[in-house]
């Protein structure tokens, strides 16, 4: 991601980023899907934070944690849950021009 003039604030207070997990009850037989966002050299850090806030209603702090994880580690798991909703999130992130993909957890 491109830093531009954007400042990342409050990072010292942050703990390890964790993906949002869908609260819907699942049985053991239902596969779990995760939404990943991959790093790209084009989108601005401030833009990615805004997209996470917009798509997932994340707080600024949480959105920044995921953005930093994408930037630092190359990817971040931003949501975990059932496939249909995960697909919807992937498509919405792609509409915002982020590199997002769907993956079966532990698969």
């Amino acid at each position, binding site marked *: 991601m491109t830093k531009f003039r954007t400042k990342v604030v409050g990072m010292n207070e942050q703990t390890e980023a964790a993906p949002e997990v869908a609260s819907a009850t699942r049985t053991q037989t239902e596969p779990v899907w995760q939404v990943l966002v991959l790093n790209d050299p084009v989108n601005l850090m401030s833009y990615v934070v805004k997209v996470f806030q917009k798509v997932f209603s994340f707080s600024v702090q949480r959105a920044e944690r995921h953005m930093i994880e994408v930037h630092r580690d190359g990817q971040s798991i931003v949501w975990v849950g059932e496939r249909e909703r995960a697909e919807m999130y992937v*498509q919405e992130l792609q509409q915002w021009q982020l590199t997002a993909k769907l993956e079966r957890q532990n698969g």
Partner: protein
Amino acid sequence: MGDIHLSMDGEFMERFVEPLRKMDEMTASLAQSKVLIPEGDALMRQLWIEHLRSSLAADMEVFWTLIGDKRFGNEPLVLSPAEAESVLRAAASLRMRIREAFLADVEDIVLEKGMLDIQSLPPDLQKVYVSYIFLGSLQELLLSHL
């Protein structure tokens, strides 16, 4: 959230509008070229791409209606938050396509950190890179208002 009022110099804007329009046309086919579609049948893939295409087309229409407005530069451009989001997405798409079509040889880290020496580029690419930077600046400006 209220409307966003953007003011820019008309002559400054004129330098970007037509080159960006050409770049948009030239790179239109690249818009969904790197999309990672979940596994599924052919119909699902087709619908997935069509949805992204129509969504981008709507964003680009807003982008060109506003940015291409001849009054912009002479009077403030007024955008609703929804229009600002469309312009943000359209600018992101244009930047992605410009990178893929014209700046593919630039290393990720160089582009990401803004370390590209513009003087090292041929004149045509210098204009492309300045347009790329302009779009990023426009995004930053809009993000500061949202």
